[in-house]
């Protein structure tokens, strides 16, 4: 086995995993607090990528990649724009499409969420068109070598940003008053209300934070992968949701762990050779592992839900956000 290749894929997997983790956090937070799968979450992420592109273009950075302080400034502005837009979008969506249905039978908010997802996708389509759009590659991407494995600075950047955000989230949830309120509402909404917690506000803030994280993920995704398209929200959303379930829905650490695991798996699956290729002598899968990533991830989702629905970290940590 080619260890360099595997090491390579691990790094790539970690980077993608970090992004999945950030998105998964949004899913798991919302589910933990109102037991709704926010179908539209992936599409909020997609909108974030578009916002970032627009900002970077507006600053003229696409054609003249800045360096030094200017670069930091541009990236920072892109972050801020994306995070703010996504966060606001998240809150608005909650107020308009989910709040009125809080007491409706479970199918109703789910269908409403599907509706929101459809709307966002078309907004993305109208805004930037049907084909994939290039994300300005302004991050200085140099490779250095750990042994024989090449590591890009962008991967390091992605991982660092994700880790910072996740740590910040953990700190927020575990130490601040608002974080405590979120955990309380997630455990028992009525009791929390009786304790004087403004449940509506807490729910809105949960959406705000979750969507904001997706916004941040959008920027680093764009910087790393270099393109976006109006329907990535759907695919990435499904993957991130699988990650959230894998880690244990409602569990923050679980979402992070799940994201990483899914990232690694999706990366490693690409090793599987193409059975159509004569050199493999029929070993592998038709068209290679690359074409079957979705199937694998989805297979994982089913396996978890059938055999261990509480996820990896579920039953041992009933603590939720």
């Amino acid at each position, binding site marked *: 086995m080619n260890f360099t290749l595997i090491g390579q894929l691990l790094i790539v997997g970690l980077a993608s995993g970090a992004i999945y983790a950030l998105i998964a956090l949004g899913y798991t937070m919302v589910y933990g607090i109102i*037991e*709704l*799968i926010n179908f539209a979450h992936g599409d909020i992420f997609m909108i974030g990528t578009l916002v970032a592109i627009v900002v970077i273009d507006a600053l003229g950075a696409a054609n003249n990649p800045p360096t030094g302080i200017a670069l930091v400034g541009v990236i920072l502005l892109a972050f801020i724009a994306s995070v703010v837009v996504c966060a606001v979008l998240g809150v608005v969506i909650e107020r*308009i*499409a989910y709040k*009125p*249905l809080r*007491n*409706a*039978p*479970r*199918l*109703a*908010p*789910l*269908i*409403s969420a*599907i*509706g*929101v*997802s*459809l*709307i966002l*996708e*078309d*907004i993305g*389509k*109208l*805004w*930037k*068109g*049907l084909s994939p759009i290039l994300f300005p590659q302004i991050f200085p991407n140099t490779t250095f070598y750990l042994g024989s494995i090449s590591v890009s600075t962008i991967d390091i950047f992605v991982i660092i940003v994700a880790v910072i955000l996740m740590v910040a989230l953990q700190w927020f949830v575990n130490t601040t008053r608002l974080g405590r309120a979120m955990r309380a509402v997630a455990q028992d909404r009525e009791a929390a209300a009786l304790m004087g917690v403004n449940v509506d506000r807490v729910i809105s803030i949960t959406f705000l934070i979750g969507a904001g994280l997706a916004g941040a993920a959008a920027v680093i995704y764009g910087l790393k992968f270099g393109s976006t398209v109006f329907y990535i929200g*759907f695919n990435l959303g*499904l993957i991130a*949701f699988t990650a959230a*379930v894998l880690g*244990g*829905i*409602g569990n923050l650490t679980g979402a992070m762990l799940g994201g990483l695991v899914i990232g690694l798996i999706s990366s490693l699956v690409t090793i599987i050779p193409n059975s*159509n290729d004569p050199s493999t002598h029929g070993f592998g*899968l*038709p*068209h290679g592992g690359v*074409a*079957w990533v*979705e*199937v694998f991830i*989805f297979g994982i*989702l*089913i396996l978890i*839900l*059938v055999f261990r*629905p*509480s*996820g990896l970290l*579920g*039953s041992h*940590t*009933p603590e*939720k956000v």
Partner: protein
Amino acid sequence: MAVSTNDRWLVPARDTRMLLVKWVLALLVPLLVFNFAWQGDALINNVILGINNPAAANTTLDQLIEAAVFVVVFYVVILILAGYLVASDSGRRGMVEVWADVLVFLVVPILLINATANLILGVAVSAIVWGIYFLLRKRIPAFTRLQPQSLLDNLQVISQEQRAAIMNRARAGGFWLGASLALVWIIFDILFYVSGQLDTELLIFGVVRTIILPIAGFLLGTLGGRVALRHVLNANGESENGSRQKRERLQATSRVREEAADVVPNDLPLRSKGARNFYLLLVIVFVLFYPAIDPFLFGYGTNGRLAGYGDAGFYVILALGLNIVVGFAGLLDLGYVAFFAIGSYAWGMIGSTQLTNVLNLPPINPQVLSVLFWPMLLIGALIAAFWGVLLGAPTLRLRGDYLAIVTLGFGEIVPVFFLNLDQYTNGTNGIVGVHSPAFFGIDWSTITPVPYYYLILALIALTIFANIRLRDSRLGRAWIAIREDEIAAASSGVNLVRTKLFAFGAGAFFSGIAGVYHSAKLGQVSPDNFSFGDSVIYLAMVVIGGLGSIPGVIVGALAVYSINLFILAQLDSMATDPTNFMYGVSHFITQYIPGFTFGNIRNLVFGVILIVIMIFRPEGLIPSARRRRELHHEVNEGPEEGALDVIPTAPGFETEVHVE
């Protein structure tokens, strides 16, 4: 209800006069609209002309005869209906209300169908109007119905005199409708004749018609009266109709009330069960004879329309199938398109050279292939049902949202399999040359879409029949019980595993039928035809129409199909026409949003519709009686969270709760 024995049908008493004004006008207006706005008279005139000079008409003799039959049946039913409605009216519903109802439910659709030159589009847009009307009707006090007194108090044994009086009314209703229609018609005819637009022979026919219509009205009105009285018991306790005795055995008060809804005195004659049978009859006759009468009604474009209806038809079947899973059993299946794909590929592979290529066998004789279609309808459905059970199995213990996600995943994955296993399925290129069925040796692909139209009608009828039978059976009750409360259902003896699997299987079965039909009609199959977007559309059909309601999902399917394929496309083509007002609107928008076309915002439109419906009318356009109660009952008992309703990470979830 004042019944006077001096009532004569020719010189009615004052009460009856008012009734006549109410009903004859109510029925006359749509008839006239149909005749003159939608060229119903063209239908008849051409039939007459055609019968007299077959060479002059550009239609075949078959079509003429069918059209003639349609006309006769149509007017017969309406005259009977007139007698029925007049006889069974209790006077409780105001004239204006009845006229408003008729206007919205009959006149508007006729006008819309005429304007859009398309049956489905017209009906779909009408459905929207109906929805708005329903909403308004509740809000505007003037439209509120009077609160009816308990029918039980008024239910009485009908005496001979009363019976005679009611029959008089019926006769009067039929007669006067026939007479007024004849009168108006002949006036128009005379006007046209004088201005030179009418042939002489048509005028002669008009005179004949003026004599026939009132007489027919009289006789058919009598029939209508008899229908209205069919549930009535005689003064001596015997009923007119022997088979009613079976019902009387289980005569609970509420049952009597239900039947009384059909008997004089009647609160809702327009909507009563008896009247509904008439409407159903009219619709069935209309739909059956449609290919023959379409050329007369619209003039041109028949084949295109029929082909379109064929396509809309399989949407209806898909909606009905999904209704079993989502509407009856409450299992939110977001991957329904997978079974549609399986059905399509089933015929796609067998009905073309694909399968034989893969197996290295000589291709099947095309004539045999065409006949093979018929058993394949069943086999393809069974294959899809098998996969329905297989893919449903992992979801059995999952709760609503998770079930949705997993099924969504399947909906994504199955097309991937078809795409990637291209050594068997030809992957992205799809399969072409899929055969059409044959009937009595005629290959359908070579002639008009008419056979496909009738085929889909037959399939839809079968599907509706199956759905109704299933719903009203032990299995159907079990499904609804599961939807309402799984734990209580299991504790009442319902085997959750088997019942849910049956639901998946049954739902998939119908999508398999639709799939086989679809690939035969389209002539090809490719993985691009099946995506999550389609699953959403099917779900939208069921949700918009009304979860669990059979007429609801049919209307929902037509509405969604129209939006999907017609309305937006229409708007786009209007936008390219400089003379159309849409041109300006579209131009304005594209200045700010360059990528804008109406087709592009399809998902946006659906998304907004879904959200709006969920918030404001979650029971759908035409809800089943159950659902309306479920979602709007005054005492809002929220979802019950007993000791058994726990969430995944909390102890006591699926690892503990063990219901299979």
